[in-house]
Structures are given as structure tokens and as C-alpha cells.
């Protein structure tokens, strides 16, 4: 039997409704949430994603300013802009992810004021992630948890395997699952015998950036499979999971595109509204 599809598009629609309610509540308190996006003009794909975020904000009535910087922007100019945004009272959250490789994302993220960090990449916010009730959850991880929730499957005492140990996805997802009393394994590029892990997984979260890394033989029957990968092969977007093979084995699966992607923007905005609510 084919796996049930977890649709990020449907989940997003629901989350957006929740966002609308939150925004209305904030409005009554006289708070108009404001987002700043900093993006470098090249490659065009980044600007495209920024525009998608801007459009989502416009639809919801969130103030959004996209700072589109030329490709040859220096680190100093970048820092200068961040400093301005850090002190701007109308801005409640700053989004700088993703950055081009010549900017070290980890070090640049530390320049965002911790109380305007909505990505969850400031050390101070990451350090609190190991606590039982973290004040800020990295938005991609938050989206993944939302998708897992929609299956309605109780994962307590079950086994989850997270492939990839990034600070935006792998590690925060693992920490959040632990808080839900799920047994969690974290695997990565240095893991020997990945199959022996994935075969045991009732929940498999894959975020590695290797197209079609996970094949049908690697998946336990009936598992929930969350594919966070977005890889451009030729002109097509494919995930880290071999969708058409795995969907015959898995119980639930997220498609690429249309799975994790759409939810992440909504979750970024959820974090923004939380920040705005706390600003008063």
C-alpha cells in the first residue's frame, strides 16, 4: 500500500489561519509585527525565496522589508546593516538565512540581537534548546515537528532516526523529539552502516543534501519519512529520499517540493510573532 502523503501545503494553510488570529490579537495591543530580510542579490534563487517570504507577509499584513544587497557587499557593510536593524524598534525579527558561502553563517548569526533572532541560530537561543521548554525553536525544526504532529501517530517509546546534524534541522529536531520521550539516533556523513540505523526507525528525518540518499531498502515498513532535502538535479527539485521507491514501503511521507518547504516560511513568521508579542 502506498504511503499517505503529508502535505506541507495543507498544513501551511492551517498555520496561516492561526497566524491571522495572532496578528489580530497583537494589533489590538497596538503592536504591528515587522520583519527584516537581508539577502544577497546573487544567486537569484535566494532573492526568489525572499520574495516568497515577502508575499506571505503581505498576505498576512505583516510589515516586511527586504534588504537586497549587491553580491560584492563586504562583511563590514553587512554588519553595519545588522546593527541598524538590531536597534530599529519597528523590526521584531531578522532573517539572514541562507547566506552565501563566503559569509560564515554561524558567526554572522551571532551579530543578530538574541531577542531579534527568529531563526534560532544565536548561540544564546541554541543553548536553551536542551531545556524542556525552549523559548525559541529553529524554524525549520519547528515546521518538521508540525508535520510529524499531523500524522497523529504517538511516537512515545518509539525510535526516531535523524540523518544530518545541522544546527538548523538535525540537532534541534533530535532535542525536540527527546522532550517528547522518543528514542532518537543522530546519524551523519561519518556514520558507518547507516542502514542499520534507518531500518529501525519508526520516524526518519533526513536532512543531508544528498539527492535520493535514502532508498526503499533502508526504510522500515510503515515508517514516517520526513524529507528535508532540496536538491536541484538538472532542472528538477528532488529530496534526500527516493520518493517513488520509499513511498511503497513507508506509512507516511513528505513530498519534495510541497512538503517541508512551505511550512518553514510559516514557522519563521510564527517565531516573528512570538518575538513581537514579547516586545511589549
Amino acid at each position, binding site marked *: 500500500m502506498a504511503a499517505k502523503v503529508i502535505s506541507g501545503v495543507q498544513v501551511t494553510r492551517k498555520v496561516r489561519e492561526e497566524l491571522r488570529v495572532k496578528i489580530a490579537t497583537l494589533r489590538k495591543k497596538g503592536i504591528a509585527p515587522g520583519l527584516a530580510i537581508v539577502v544577497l542579490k546573487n544567486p537569484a534563487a535566494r532573492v526568489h525565496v525572499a520574495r516568497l517570504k515577502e508575499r506571505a507577509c503581505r498576505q498576512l499584513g505583516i510589515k516586511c522589508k527586504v534588504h537586497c544587497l549587491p553580491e560584492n557587499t563586504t562583511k563590514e557593510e553587512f554588519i553595519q546593516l545588522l546593527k541598524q536593524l538590531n536597534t530599529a524598534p519597528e523590526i521584531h525579527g531578522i532573517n539572514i538565512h541562507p547566506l552565501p558561502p563566503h559569509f560564515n553563517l554561524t558567526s554572522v548569526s551571532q551579530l543578530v540581537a538574541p531577542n531579534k533572532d527568529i531563526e534560532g541560530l544565536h*548561540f544564546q537561543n*541554541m*543553548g*536553551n534548546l536542551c531545556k524542556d521548554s525552549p523559548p525559541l525553536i529553529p524554524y525549520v525544526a519547528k515546521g518538521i515537528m508540525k508535520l510529524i504532529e499531523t500524522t497523529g501517530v504517538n511516537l512515545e517509546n518509539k525510535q526516531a532516526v535523524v540523518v544530518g546534524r545541522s544546527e538548523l534541522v538535525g540537532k534541534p529536531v533530535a532535542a525536540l523529539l*527527546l522532550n517528547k520521550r522518543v528514542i532518537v539516533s543522530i546519524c551523519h556523513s561519518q556514520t558507518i552502516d547507516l542502514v542499520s540505523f534507518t531500518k529501525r526507525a519508526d520516524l526518519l528525518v533526513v536532512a543531508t543534501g544528498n539527492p535520493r540518499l535514502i532508498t526503499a531498502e533502508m526504510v522500515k515498513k510503515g515508517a514516517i519519512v520526513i524529507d528535508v532535502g532540496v536538491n536541484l538535479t538538472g532542472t528538477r527539485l528532488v529530496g534526500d529520499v527516493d520518493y517513488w521507491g520509499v513511498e511503497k514501503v513507508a506509512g507516511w511521507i513528505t513530498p519534495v517540493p510541497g512538503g517541508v518547504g512551505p511550512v518553514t516560511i510559516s514557522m519563521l513568521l510564527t517565531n516573528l510573532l512570538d518575538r513581537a508579542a514579547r516586545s511589549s
Partner: protein
Amino acid sequence: MPMKLLNEAEIGGKIYAGIVAELEELSQKTDKVPGLGMVVVGEDPASLASIRCKEKQCRKLGFYVDIRFLPATASQEDICATVRQLNKDSRVQGLFCQLPLPETLQKKNILAAVDPGKDVCGRHPINAGKLFSGNQGFLPCNVYSLMQVIDFAGQPIRGKTAVMISRRGVVSRPLALALLRRNASVTFCPVLTGNLPEICRTADILVAETEKPGLIKGNWIKPGAMVIDIGTTRNNRGKASGIVLKEVAEVASCIFTLPAGEDSPLAITMLIKNTLHAFKQTCGMQLQH
């Protein structure tokens, strides 16, 4: 293969010898000495004993020591002000507040007042965040000591599987992150499920931080695995071991039992080592872990 019960004192002694050698080397390059600041609130006898012990160790090595005693009635603001003074004092490169703090105080706020660059106990959220993201920061002393023990035992980490049995993860969570940073695959069990034995048998490094005495049996152990018994201490009623030592000893390559509390001799040695790291950093020298 002879079974090895790793000896805390022996490993501590080796680390200590390393510190002495490093200090020797440093004394040729600089006239400055490492400095450690300590803030003690109240008169809890155990805390005072621990502080005296730390002071003695530091003085023996020629460290500069600055101990600030505050009354149990001190407010959060008083304590933070003292911490800030030490933050600014360039003679002090390492700094910590002795725990436990009186319960009326917000521990979180006080720990966060310490300059992260001087936080040699690794308790500041920024250092926790650095560990989480895989960056270099101060490790909590207990976790740091366990990483050293694993290395001393000659247990490889890269590509190996570590399994942590722990409900709350006080030591295990940061340890898991430290092992992950060194390229281990890590499985974390916050619950005692039916297939726990099976999961344990995948472990090259098994870490037991469980409140259930004698939970882990001999046939749960992969032959040749390293076993770390953290146990738990509750209400100072002594320590419960999570493993059946006799059985496990027959299968494991080596076993290490973490001494109770944050003020064991080994943990104090790691505190000194972290202070030395902090000192070297301020001197512009490379930090090595």
C-alpha cells in the same frame, strides 16, 4: 583480555601532570599567571569545603585566586554586581559561582551574568549553544572529564556508536553533543523501553545515567564496548550504579564510573584545565580540546 576498571585518580593525575607541564612551558613565554575568580553565596559547609579545595589546588599551581564571599541574604543584584566586577578584572580569566545557590535566587540569571569567555564551568547559555552548534566553547567540567577519560582509554570516537541511557540527560545531553562533534553516531534513550537491551548492544560507547540501580546487564553489552556509569545522586544519599558491575565487567573492554557531584577531584582538575585554556586564549594562544 584483562578487564579494565578505569581509575579516576590515575587519569586525573595524568591530566594534572599535563597542566603542570603546560604551565612550565608558559612561564617561559609570559610573566602573567592564570587567575580564577569564585563567588560563594551563603555558608553551606559542603560548598565552603569545596571552595577551599579549589583554592588550594589553584594556589599550588601558582594561580591568582580571587574569592568573593557573599552572605546568604545577598540579592540577585548584589551577586550579579560581584560577577560583573570579576568579569572586568583582567587578572581573572576564569570565573564561576559555586552551586548550589540559595533557592530563593534565580540561578539562571546569575549564571548568565558570567562573561561567556570566562565561564570555565560551561554553564552560560552561550557556551551551551556553542556546544550545540558544534563550535568551540567551554565544556561543563564533568563532560570535559568524560571526554578525556574516553581518550585516555584509547577508545576511538569517530564513526563509532554511542548510546546514552538517560531520562533527564543532565550529563548525557552535553556529552552526546560533544561525542557528536567528534563524529560519533549517537542514540539517546530517554525512556526504558522493551528493546533497550537491543539498542544497548549497538553501542561502542555506552553511557548509563539512570536512576534504576542495576538496570544494565552483562548481556546488554557489545563485547569490547566501553561503558561509562554516571549513575545519579539524589539528596546526597550516595550514588546508585546503573549497571550490574560484575556481569558487565566480563564483556566490556573498560568501565569508568563518574565520581559523584560537580566537585569531584577530577572535575576540579578539569576546572583548572579550562581556566588554563581561558588564560591561553587571552594570551592569544591556541585553544586545544
